[in-house]
Every structure is written in C-alpha cells, then in structure tokens.
C-alpha cells in the first residue's frame, strides 16, 4: 500500500508497542542545548543511568549566549553556569559539543542541517519546540520536554503516540515580495494555532518543490506554532544537493546508497492522508501579526481586526485581550505603526539567504532615527559567510548592529531584550506576551525583508513599496 513519509519513518524506527499503547520510538539523532538538558542530565544521575548513544547526541549553545560578548565568564553568572554545566555533561558522556571555540556553534536548528547531521528518513528529537525545522529534510523531528530528553539520553528512544498526517499543498507561484515566512504565517492564520493538534504537517505543492532548503526550514520551523508536533517536506534533489559534502553527510560510495535510501522514504504517490488542505500561493501576501499568538496575522494591506465585528464571543475576547496588550487601535491600518526595535535573526530566519535578501535591498539605505536595529546570524558559519560576502558591512552601514550567533532577541534568556512596551518588528517565530524579554514588550512577526522595511521607514511598511519589489 502507498505510504506517507511519516508512516515509513515511523515504521523504520518503531521498537515495540508499550503497555499504554504508545510506541517506543528509536530516535536516530538527539540534539541538545544548554537550557533544557542540564535538568535531564541531573535526572539521569539521580537514576544512576548513562547516555545510551553519545555518538548520536550533539550539543550546541544558543539560548543564553550573549551576542555582544565572546569572552567568558559571561556577565550573567547563571548563563555562565549553564554553559559550564553543558560543557561538563558533554565531556563526561563523550558527546560532541559545537562550543563557541569550534567555529560551528549556533542555534541548534541551524547547526544540525549545516553540519549534515539532519538527514532524510531519520528521527530527530530536541528539547526545543522548533525541532520541527529539521523536517525540511524529510526527517521526522519532535520537540520534547526535559523528562523525554532524559528518556532519549538513557535509551535513545521515547514513548510516543502516532500522529495523523495532514498534507498541505501550496499551489502555483508566490507573488514577488512574498516569502516562506509569509507562507507559514498564512497557513497558521488559515488553520489556527491549534489546527495542527495531533498532526504532522506534510508540506508540498509547486511552491515547496521550488523552495530552497532554507525556505523549507523556515516553514517547517513554525509548524509547532500551528499546533502540529512535526512538519516535513519530502526529500528531493534540492535536499540532496544541500547535503552533499557536509561534514556529517555520507561520503563516497556511501553517498549514493544513502540517496537511494532517502528517495525511498518520500511519500508514495497516491498515499492516503488523514487530511488534505489546498492553498493557492497567489492568495498569500506579506503577512504581519498584530496580536499575541502567531495566528493573529493579517496581510500588510489589511486593517487591525475590530472586536466589535467579531462573530463569536470567544473571538471577540481574544481580539480584545490582544489589542489591549499590543496597544493597537482596532480598525486601523497595520501599515504605519511606529516601531522601536527591528530584529533579524532566530532559527526561523537567521540563515544566509535571509541576510543576503535583506542586504540586497537595504544597501545604501539607513535605519530610521530612533529605531534600534539588530541583525543576528543564526550560527557562526552563517556569520562567517555573511562577513565573507560583505553582508555584515552593508547592514552596519545601514545602521544595524551586527552581532555574534545565538537566539538573541527571539526570547528573553540573554542580554538582548525589549525594554518597557517597545514594539519590535521581528523575524522570529513567537509573539507571546513578554516573549522578547520585557513583560510589556510587543512583537510583530514578519519576514526579514518586512523587518528591514520597518527598520528603514521607522514603521510597519510594505517591503514591496519600500524596496520597489516588482513583478
């Protein structure tokens, strides 16, 4: 019978059925970072257990690293303690750690692909919700909690119920100035922030066929914001071209065999799905969030929703709550909303192609007075490549701060934080209350080019107009 990639990967990694009906699933690759792993190592010690497959476990440091300080000890003693704890845990267990001194450090979801660790037909787990990013390669990748990290460390498996699969086709062509970020913000807006509960999302259609790996990663990254535990794209020539020659990719004769195996994992034509959703690419516009969850988004040309026009009481209440927090006026155009901060980075949009696209357009422009603009590469390798291409200089000349690799202002665990109720145009993935470090800080999610447009005009703007992006 024709099977989906999810079915095939699941079957290839199912060890056995547990008493509660869940599956003991083999996790081929375990990625860890400093925030969610130390407690798991602690639990392991308490139980007197060891790491089962240290050679299939890879670590990096991303959330807490200051992006403006490279020398240790860090100013924040807690950050320093977490750093040292991870170093110690990796050394004790024989785990490869892409520490800052290796030149390969970065956000975990950027490092895995970059190193060729993320491969098609594999299972991946990481104590981080955006692990779905790795699905871009046709891997089945789960974000897990600390207790599950303990389970994976101790047994290289975890207990999991099987997901359903929803195929999401994005058909046709994206209009100019519309990016992968807009595609996923649109999908979440259409299907809702809980629409994916119980599902893995399989993304396909012409738009995904044409997407680069980095674009596929941007979409898969935010699957979780739509409630889907995992999201993936079937592996194809684009995937293989990206992986060839990477440090952990199979080499020589093993490469051909691997590609053949990987092809076999792609969903069979005509395989059944639990649900299918079709989206017309032409319906997708540059999208901006106005609220406090990633589903509260609108096209740049639209107005901020008015609770008075909501049809359901629930919807009205959630719009009211969001607008009260965001201090935005119902019915007003989102375009023209003054911003204080512009942030380009994160595991969603902190890759080379993101910075290339921004640099191409901001060359010769200036960040508006009063706007703090920071550009933070997602990994040291991205940083180095940007520096080789002069992208860092273009951004600096435009008035952006160019920082060292890390999660930075995506979340409030390092010194890059909003202050008071600052409004931030952000290329990250979450606009929850307080997400960017100030309990009253406000986040508008958008594509990197839209962030750049907001940075140079000082307010939310249509990048297509600001940078004369034409068809």
């Amino acid at each position: 019978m024709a099977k989906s990639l999810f079915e095939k990967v699941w079957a290839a990694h199912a060890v056995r059925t547990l008493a509660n009906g869940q599956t003991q699933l083999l996790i081929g690759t375990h990625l860890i970072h400093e925030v969610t792993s130390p407690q798991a190592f602690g639990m392991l010690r308490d139980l007197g257990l060891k790491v089962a497959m240290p050679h299939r476990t890879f670590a990096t440091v991303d959330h807490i690293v200051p992006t403006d300080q490279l020398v240790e000890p860090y100013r924040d003693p807690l950050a320093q303690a977490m750093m040292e704890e991870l170093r110690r845990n990796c050394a004790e267990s024989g785990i490869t750690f892409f520490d800052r001194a290796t030149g390969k450090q970065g956000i975990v979801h950027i490092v895995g692909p970059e190193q060729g660790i993320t491969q098609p037909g594999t299972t991946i787990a990481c104590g981080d919700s955006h692990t779905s990013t790795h699905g871009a390669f046709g891997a089945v990748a789960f974000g897990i909690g600390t207790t599950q990290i303990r389970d994976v460390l101790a047994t290289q498996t975890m207990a999991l119920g099987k997901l359903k699969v929803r195929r999401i086709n994005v058909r046709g062509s994206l209009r100019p100035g519309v990016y992968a970020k807009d595609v996923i913000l649109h999908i979440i807006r259409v299907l809702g922030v809980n629409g994916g509960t119980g599902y893995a999302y399989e993304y396909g259609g012409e738009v995904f066929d044409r997407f680069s790996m980095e674009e596929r990663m941007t979409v898969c990254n935010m699957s979780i914001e739509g409630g889907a535990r995992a999201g993936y794209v079937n592996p194809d020539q684009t995937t293989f071209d990206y992986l060839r020659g990477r440090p952990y990719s199979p080499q020589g004769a093993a490469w051909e065999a691997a590609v053949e195996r990987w092809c076999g994992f792609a969903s069979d034509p005509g395989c059944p799905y639990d649900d299918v959703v079709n989206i017309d690419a032409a319906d997708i516009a540059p999208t901006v969030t106005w609220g406090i969850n990633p589903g509260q988004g609108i096209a740049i040309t639209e107005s901020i929703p008015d609770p008075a026009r909501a049809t359901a009481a629930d919807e009205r209440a959630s719009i009211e709550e969001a607008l009260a927090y965001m201090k935005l006026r119902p019915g007003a155009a989102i375009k023209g909303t003054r911003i204080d901060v512009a942030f380009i980075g994160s595991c969603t949009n902190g890759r080379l192609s993101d910075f290339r696209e921004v640099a191409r357009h901001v060359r010769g422009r200036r960040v508006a007075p009063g706007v703090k603009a920071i550009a933070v590469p997602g990994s040291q390798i991205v940083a180095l490549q940007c520096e080789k291409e002069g992208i860092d200089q273009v951004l600096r000349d435009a008035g952006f701060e160019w920082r060292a690799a890390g999660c930075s202002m995506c979340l409030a665990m390092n010194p890059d934080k909003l202050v008071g109720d600052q409004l931030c145009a952000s290329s990250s993935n979450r606009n929850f209350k307080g997400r960017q470090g100030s309990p009253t800080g406000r986040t508008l999610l958008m594509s990197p080019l839209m962030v750049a447009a907001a940075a140079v005009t000082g307010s939310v703007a249509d990048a297509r107009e600001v940078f004369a992006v034409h068809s």
Partner: protein
Amino acid sequence: MALEKITAVTGRAVCVPGNDIDTDRIIPARFMKCVTFDGLGEFLFHDVRKKADGTDQAHPLNDPRFRGATILLSGANFGCGSSREHAPQAIQKHGFRAVVAESFAEIFFGNCTTLGIPCAAAARADIARLAAALEADPALPVTLDVAAGEIRFGGQSIRAEVRPAARDALIHGRWDAIGELLEGLPAVQALAARTPYLAA
C-alpha cells in the same frame, strides 16, 4: 520502577481564567536560566502576578483565600506555546497536583502526564460552575477522580476526563515511561544495528 498510582487528586482548587494561556505566561523565559527545576514554583505566572516594581498585583494565585490550592482550573488551550517542561515543573513545584481546563496544548499535556500531573478536560460551563462554587467557598474540598473521569465538590459532580492513554498510565502507575523504555534496550540496540545511518 514502581510509581505511584494516581487515581484521584483531592484538595482545594483555584481558577486562573482565560484561554490560550501559554508557557511564557506560566513561566516567563527569563526564569528558565537554571540547571535544576528546584525553586521554579515561586515564579509561576510571575509577570501577571507581579507589578514592574516586584510587588503583587491582583491575581488568583496571590489571593490569600486560595493559598495552598492543589488543583488548577483554567480555560481553553492551556499550556500552548513552547515545549519547555519548565511550565509543568513550575506548576508542580508551586504545589499543584492536577490541572483542569477546557482543553490543553499537546506537548504541555504530555509533559504534565510524564510528571504525574493529571490534565483533565471539562466543559466550559462546568468549569464556570466549579469556579463559582470556589468563589463562594474557597476552602471547598474538590476531588478529581481520574479513574471515573469526574470532579466532585460540595455534593455536585461534573465530567472531567483525562484522555484514555494518559488516564491509564496515571492510574496504573505507568505515567513515567523510563522503566518500560529501559526494559526495551536490547530491542533498541538490535534495531539500531539494522538501521543504516545508525549502524555505520
């Protein structure tokens, strides 16, 4: 590993109303800078409980009438957002033993179950009825009967179901999978040896 069989949770309850209460609200990310979970309970719902100057503001968890509650009530899609276990850990370390809400976010639900915290779903009107009873008598003893799928309080009862797989795990003392997973290790090693990218 013998685990407690969690068939019921009895205690006082408190309602934190609202839908889509996310993990950042439950425990703001800046409190996740820790190498153990001890001490997280203190920061539960921190940013909505404290004013900018660090003093308390009106919040059910600051209300002395509800101090010592072990059952937390809330609205729909509770625990959405991040996979961080700091959220259920903060809830547990604060003293809660069960959460009752209209619905739960997937990862949060799983994380809670693994810690032995039953997450029971109840109808909005029923939660409102229980919340009203608590408002009238904050000391009202409340029992979440995990096995029976109901909540009993002051002579009333409402449906409150933990999803079957989680319910069975809780009542049979199998909510933490580690014991069973360890038993499977020989089979794990055998499968890994047959899996090309792991065998190499």
